[in-house]
Structures are given as structure tokens and as C-alpha cells.
């Protein structure tokens, strides 16, 4: 895995887009470091697709600008970007191989090169003798794979995947996930747009969170999660009677008795005290035997829900 280099591959600067009376994107800025997987998150209708359409130059922003490697976006960048839209579609009456060649050539590839790479990809993704079939005769999962191949075939520097796993069974989803990681290893920068959070933590290095056309959060996943830490720890152990935390620096979030005198304690540290203080208290002031301690860092899903709620509340009070 390559470390993200300092220079961003893509910079979104104060981008705004207005449709009729509806604001799709409003003053959104963030940088996407080269070689990372960037999660573009947000609930439905937050403006993800509108923003992607600006990056892929399907539409132009009303305000602001997008820089690709420091250059203002222009048509020469189109062939360096691969886009897998959420709404998938292929020509149904066209053969798989033929269709892929067509789409590759539209991206500016030579025919022979396209054919060579298509064959490699078809082998990789288990298309055994299905290249001659019409797209409409394939299963939905296979059609999705064709679409994926079409997106990555021209080896774009920036790959934009809008909900790439929808429509895949777990086995194929894994296959695609491995390919995505492989592409990152080779240096491709990937924008991964989704509202399904469980896939985010495994894949993404950076995230930006959009809600109601605005960016409400962005940064490296680690930093974002750290910034949402609440000094809450989960402690497992055994004790003849449940340990009682009667101390102003500790706040018991939850306590649970488990079979065989086991307990699970969730406690938050207040007033900036360290974990050691809690542990010392437990060891010295209670009969508890501690077997494990770990910090409860909020998942991206929690952060997502919490931030969206907070921003909604801010909108209501504003």
C-alpha cells in the first residue's frame, strides 16, 4: 500500500451547483490525495451524484472549480477518469466483447490494446466463453461485472465508483473488493461513493461527509474517528459483586452482568483523567479482576448518523 503523497490528485474548491430552485451542491471543498480510497458519504439526496457529475464533467459547476493534478478540469481529463455510475446500463442487444471494445474506444483506446486488456479482465472475473453472449442473456451480477470492466479498462488515474457493490452477491462483492484494493496498490486513486457504511471502514483512507448539499465533515478516516473519541472504554472482568464506580471523574454508560460472575462495564472518563486512573481505581477500590480493556471508538456509521442529526438540528434551530 502506497502512502498518500502530499499533492492532491483532485481538489474541489468551493463548488456550488444550482438546479432550478433546488441547490444540489453548495460551497463544497476538499482534497483527494493521490493513491487513496476516498469515501464520499452522505444520505440519499445529499448531493453526491451531483458532485460526481461535476468531477466527471457531465455538468459544470455554477461556482467554484475542480483541479485535477493542479490543472483546472478540462476535456483532456475525461480519458483519465473512470466512472461507474450508480444507475448501471449497457446496450442489451450487443455482445459483451463488442460492447467493451466500443466503450474502450470511446475512451480513446486503440482497438488491439482494448481487445488484449478485455481478455485479461474477462479471464480475471470468470467470464468463461460468455464474451460472445448478448448482454441481455447474462445474469445481473455478470452484467455488473461487464460494467466494472468497462470502467477500469482504460486504466484511469482516478476511478469513481458509485455504490459499486449494489447488485453483487457476497462472493462477487468480495471479488470486486479485491480488485479495487489491487487497483489502489497499483496507484489508482478511487472515489467511493456510498451510503452503506460497513464497507467504508474496510476500504477507505479518507472520507468526506455530505448532507443537504453541504460538506459537514472530511479528513483521513483515522483522524475523523479519533476526533469523535469520547474517552469511553469497555472493561471486561470478573467480580463476586458488580464493581461500583463512585467517583466524579467516571461516568458509567452501561453495566451488565454476565454468567459466572463476569461483568461488562462501559465507562466514560471525565475531566481529562487518564485510563490509568480508572484502572487503578478498579484494582484498588473494587474486588474486580480485569481481563480486557478497550476503547470504544465510534464507527463511521455512528459518526455519520450523529453528524447528520447534528447538522439537521442546526438547520432547525438556525
Amino acid at each position, binding site marked *: 500500500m502506497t502512502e498518500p503523497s502530499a499533492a492532491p490528485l483532485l481538489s474541489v474548491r468551493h463548488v456550488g451547483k444550482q438546479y432550478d430552485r433546488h441547490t444540489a451542491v453548495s460551497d463544497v471543498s476538499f482534497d483527494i490525495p493521490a493513491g487513496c480510497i476516498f469515501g464520499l458519504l452522505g444520505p440519499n439526496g445529499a448531493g453526491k451524484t451531483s458532485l460526481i457529475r461535476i468531477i466527471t464533467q457531465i455538468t*459544470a459547476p*455554477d461556482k467554484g472549480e475542480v483541479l485535477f493534478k493542479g490543472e483546472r478540469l478540462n476535456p483532456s481529463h475525461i480519458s483519465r477518469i473512470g*466512472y461507474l455510475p450508480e444507475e448501471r*446500463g449497457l*446496450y442489451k442487444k450487443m455482445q459483451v466483447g463488442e460492447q467493451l471494445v466500443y466503450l474502450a474506444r*470511446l475512451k480513446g483506446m486503440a482497438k488491439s490494446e482494448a481487445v488484449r486488456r478485455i481478455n485479461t479482465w474477462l479471464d480475471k472475473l470468470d467470464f468463461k466463453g460468455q464474451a460472445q453472449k448478448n448482454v441481455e442473456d447474462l445474469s445481473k451480477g455478470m452484467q455488473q461485472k461487464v460494467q466494472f470492466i468497462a470502467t477500469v479498462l482504460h486504466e484511469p488515474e482516478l476511478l469513481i465508483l458509485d455504490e459499486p457493490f449494489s447488485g453483487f452477491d457476497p462472493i462477487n462483492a468480495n471479488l470486486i473488493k479485491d480488485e479495487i484494493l489491487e487497483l489502489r496498490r497499483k496507484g489508482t486513486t478511487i472515489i467511493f461513493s456510498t451510503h452503506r457504511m460497513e464497507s467504508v471502514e474496510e476500504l477507505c483512507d479518507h472520507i468526506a461527509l455530505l448532507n443537504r448539499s453541504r460538506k459537514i465533515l472530511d479528513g483521513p478516516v483515522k483522524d475523523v474517528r479519533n476526533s469523535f473519541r469520547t474517552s469511553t472504554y469497555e472493561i471486561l472482568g470478573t467480580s463476586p459483586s458488580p464493581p461500583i464506580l463512585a467517583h466524579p471523574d467516571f461516568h458509567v454508560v452501561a453495566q451488565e452482568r454476565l454468567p459466572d460472575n463476569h461483568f461488562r462495564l462501559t465507562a466514560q472518563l471525565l475531566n481529562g483523567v487518564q485510563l490509568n486512573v480508572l484502572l487503578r481505581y478498579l484494582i484498588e477500590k473494587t474486588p474486580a479482576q480485569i481481563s480486557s480493556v478497550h476503547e470504544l471508538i465510534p464507527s463511521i456509521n455512528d459518526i455519520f448518523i450523529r453528524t447528520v442529526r447534528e447538522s439537521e438540528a442546526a438547520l432547525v434551530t438556525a
Partner: protein
Amino acid sequence: MEKIWLIFQREYLTRVRKKSFVVMTLVGPLLLAAAFAIPIWLATSDDDRVTVRVLDESGKLGQLTSADSSYRFVPVAPPLAAAKLGLKEQKGTVLLYAPPTLSLDNPAGLQLFTEANLGLDQQLGLEKLLRRQVEQLRLRRSGIDETVLAAARVTDLDLKTTRLDASGGEKDDNAGLVVALGYGGALLIYLFTFLYGVQVMRGVTEEKTNRIVEVMISSVRPFQLMMGKILGIAAVGLTQFALWVVLSYGVTTALASQFGIDKIPAVQQTNRAQTALAAEAADTGSGATVGGASATAKAAAMSEQDAGTAQKAKFAGVWSQVKAVNWGTLLAVFVFYFLGGYLLYAALFGAVGAAVDAETDAQQFMMPITMPLILSFIIAQTAVINNPNGPVAVWMSLIPFTSPIVMTMRIPFGGVPAWQLALSMTLLVLGFVGTTWLAGRIYRVGILLYGKKPTFKELGKWLFYKG
């Protein structure tokens, strides 16, 4: 440009490879042959002959005959009631009743009884026939001999039009041929624009509902996608027409040789007709100097002058007029308007396809597009044929939306000033650029919007969206 070419190829190849294309290409010439053969076959068969049962109680009508045998007259016996009953039994006949009060001076009271309504043509024809019959009877009563009358009757007058062209030369002209040429051209443009314009619309809607457009649009501009499609479908249409022409020619030739209609009589006919023409020319162009020669030629031509040769001479006349038509210019102008008209409308059809989600929603937007097309075709058949250089024809042959059809209709008549043609062509090119621009803007926005059916007001707004 390269991308338009790629899209063009795909649109062309996928369509041409379709079974429906192959079937239409093979069936087309047969349909065309049928379209010509069936009316002829119907016309030659005797089935539409009307049997008129005549009950003449006045005894004044005389022997009725029909010159072209489209009516058959059968006398029936009185009384009227019985004749009426007879009419009921004999299907497909009509009963003509002349009351006893009828006289040649007062032919009122003639009555026609029918089971089913007679066609308008048949009724008018019968009326004319009866009028002539009464006329003849009156003439005979006045003592005028029929042979005298026949000799006095003029039958062979045919107005020969000669057009003076710009260089001062003379050209034979024939309104019938001119109308046929113009009408044929206009019809082709009308059909082609409609059939293939709708295909453009359908193709765009299909891409939109398939969602393929999302993938396409990230590698090509909407405008390229639209142009590639429009041009590709135009090429499909041209291919189909070209194949039809070749196949039709093949089929007719094959049929002709099958039924032993060889080409020699036609050649002889032309030769003979040319002699006749020469005679005519000598006759009109003669002075005292070549009088003798002209007289001989005329005599030679006249010696052959039975009804058949006269007809052949007429055919030759048409043939010479066919040759007199400036085919090069005509074809060039036709191809220009054919393509120009198609491109102008196809862009608009494409925009409609982009604006709607399903074909069924397209009706509302089709209206303003099809209106000028249909209007110009109607105008071409009426106002332009009646007065090819009148104000209606001139104006409509300048406006880009109507000019392809109207100008194609006007051109064979001649007399279109060069400036009008140039202006009309320029306006058509500008019109095409304009509609393509307009359609491109609508296309760009519409193709990515799903769900809601837009209104005209919204379409207007789309024109001014940025990007």
C-alpha cells in the same frame, strides 16, 4: 470527430445487422411492386363495372351505351314496383327510371334507385353520360347529322408548353411529369424524415431508459452522442433506400423478362416516335425553303398515323421531356434538401427523445415538430402545384422547416430564381445548426433527468443551463 465516427459506426452496424432491417430490405421492393401492380390490376379487372337496369316508360331515352364500358345498360319491363323488386334480387345493380312525363325538352324527373350508395365518380359519370345522350338526341331532332358533328369535334388538341430558359433556349415542358417529379421527391423527404426521425427519438429514449447514457456521457459529449446517432441512422436510411432501388430494379427487370416484355418494342416505339417528332418539328419550323422535305416527312409520318402510333408519339414526347429535365441539378438539389430536412428534424426528434422517459410521453412534444412537416406536405400538394411561384410557395420554400418539401416540389417546375434557392439553402443550413444547438441543450439536461415528465416551460429553462 473521432468519437462521433465511432458512435456513427455502432448506430449503423447494429441497425443494419438487425433482422428487421434485412426483412424490410427484402420485403420493401415487393411492397413497392405491389403498390404499383394492385391498382393496375384492379383497374383492368372488370369488377367495378356498374350494371344499370333501365326502365324507360317515356321511350325517349333511346339506346344508352357507355364508351369505356364502365356501365352496362340492361332494359327492364314495367311496372316500376316490379323493377324495384328486381333490384333487390340483383345485388350490385342500380335502377334508372324515366317517368312517362319525360321529354327531351324537359329531362327532369329521371330517378336512380340503388341498394347501396354509388361512388361519387360513378354517379357523376352516369350523369354526364345521360346529359350527353339527351344532347345527342336533341341535336338529331334538330337535323344535325352525327358524322358532321363527329368531324367537327376536336379530340387531338394537346397544349404543348415550351419554357424559355435563361439562356434564351427553349425547352419542352410537361406539367404532369414535373408534378410527378416534385411530388415523388417531396414524398420521399416526408417519409424519410418521419420514419428515421422517429427512430432517432426512439434510440435516444432507449439509451435513457437503459441508463447506458450515464456510462456514455462520462466519455463523450452529449452533442457527440446525438450527432453520431443522427448521422448513423441517416446512413441506415440511405442504405435501405439504395438497396430498395437496386432490388426494385432487379425485380422489375426479372419480372419483365419473365413475361416476355423485351425492350425491342420500346426502342422501335421511340424510333418511330422520333420520326413523328421530326415531322412535327419540320412542320412547325419549316418555311418555304424546306417545305417539300417537310411535306414528305409529314406524309411518311402520317401514313402510319393510326391510333397506336399517335399514342407512341405522345410517349416519345414525354420521353423527350424526360430527357429535357436537368437531372444533375435536380438530383443535387433533392439530395441537399433530403439530407438538410432530415438533419433539421432529426435533431428535434432527438431532443424529444431526451426529454421524456418513455415513448408514450413523447406525443405532447411531437406535435410542434410534426405540424410543420405535415403542413408543408399538404401545402406542397395544393398551393405549390397550383402556383409554384406564388407567394405561399415562395415563402414556404424559404422557411427552413417547410423548405425541404416545398422547394423540392417547386424546383422541377422551374422559374425559381437563383437568389431564392441560395437563400433557402443558407436558411436551411442555419436552421439545422440552430435546431441542433437547441436540441443539444435540451438533450444534455434531459438525458440525465428521470422520473418527471417535463413541461414546455421547463424545456425552455434547460436551454439556459450552464455547462
